[in-house]
């Protein structure tokens, strides 16, 4: 809570300087806040180009209409997530298509290619197998998240991946705290079900890639 207050104070200072026309303050604020917004948009859309557009739109809105942010209603982060969510919904309404995580296999391939080729024997070292297994788990979790219904997915991204409190997430999602909590519990239950695949099958699947 104390960390959150310190962060809010820092955000407030940067925002004030930004409102006074300080470009460096805007840049600092952007660099501080945009990765979470981008990741949220990426998880929600599964599309890097769309996530880029949404991130851009969110900060455009902050530049053009900074007065829309009311510190009494929640943190700047929650406000920005709220804008991102609205933009994503608009896009979905326009396009009516949602591409689930397209870069997953590419990313996994890149990671495997970057693994050390051990001592020249061609055998993959045990630590690399562990890394690969770990990456497989991460990939499975990511895929599982991407298949969650939208309202469950957004609470998982905000509360689990971005480590927001229920209160902050409630502001961002414009819904009661109890709704955030119950959605998250339901989402976690679904994720647990999806991840109950036998461990051996997972290892084969990961090495096969």
């Amino acid at each position, binding site marked *: *809570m104390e960390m959150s207050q310190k962060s809010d104070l820092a955000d407030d200072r940067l925002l004030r300087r*930004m409102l006074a*026309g300080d*470009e460096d303050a*805007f*840049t600092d604020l*952007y*660099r501080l806040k*945009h*990765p979470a917004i*981008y*990741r949220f948009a*990426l998880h929600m859309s599964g599309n890097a180009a769309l*996530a*880029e557009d949404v*991130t*851009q739109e969110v*900060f*455009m809105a902050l*530049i*053009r209409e900074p007065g829309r942010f009311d510190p009494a209603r929640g943190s700047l982060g929650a406000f920005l997530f709220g804008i991102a969510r609205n933009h994503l919904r608009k896009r979905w309404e326009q396009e009516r298509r949602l591409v689930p995580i397209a870069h997953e296999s590419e990313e996994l391939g890149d990671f495997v290619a970057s693994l050390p080729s051990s001592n020249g024997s061609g055998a993959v070292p045990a630590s690399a197998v562990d890394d690969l297994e*770990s990456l497989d*788990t*991460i990939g*499975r*979790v*990511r895929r599982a*998240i991407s298949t969650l219904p939208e309202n469950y997915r957004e609470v*998982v991204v905000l509360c*689990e*991946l*971005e*480590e927001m*409190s*229920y209160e902050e997430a409630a502001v961002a999602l414009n819904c009661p705290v109890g709704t955030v*909590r119950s959605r*998250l*519990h339901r989402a*976690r239950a679904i*994720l*647990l079900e999806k*991840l*109950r695949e036998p461990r051996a099958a997972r290892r084969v699947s990961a090495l096969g890639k």
Partner: protein
Amino acid sequence: MDCSQFEELFHDLDRPGTDGFAARQSVLEHAESCSQCAQLLTQAESLDLALSALSGRETNERAPARVENLLREEFRKTHAGSARRRVRWQIAALATAAAVLLALGLSLRHYERVTAGSGNDLRDAPSLTPSISSNTGDVDSSGVDSVATEVATADNQLSDSDSASAFIPLPYADDSMSTDGGAIVRVVLSRPELASLGLPVTDMSDTDRIPADIIVSEDGAPQAIRLIAQSALD
């Protein structure tokens, strides 16, 4: 604690400020005594680890640099525009303030003129109520000269402490308001001298002397008179 309560709380064990966090000890104790809930707890812990690993792995995910460049450009444009608008507003505000001050100044000046005019009523003249009802004959310029103890030649000699009534035409004047070729002379007159000019004077025994301006025509005949009330004399 029973299994349904456990299921309600076990997702929030590590989330400060929640019921699950507050009841953490009871939840863990229940898991020790219930194998099904213990399994759920283990799975939840695995999920937490996986989510944490995913979150850590994605920490460095960010939008391309071109987005930042584009936004900074937009920021510069927006704030340059608003700075221009601010300067325009400041100029407009200054112009408005100047116009208001000017209007106030003019109003004040007009008000002072009006008050000065109304304050110079004949009522201000000490114990005199001149009227133009009687006809008392001519007073020539030599008469004026003879009664003058102080002679002035211009109207602008009224000092700050003076206030003057309007000119009153003398009963025999031809054209009392015309000063063509004539002049205005400042004189100090006794009450009998005022009476000789045709002004009704109530108390002839009073010995005070009254300052006045007289319009004298080109031929030296007094045409009109105004009494000067001197606050210094009051």
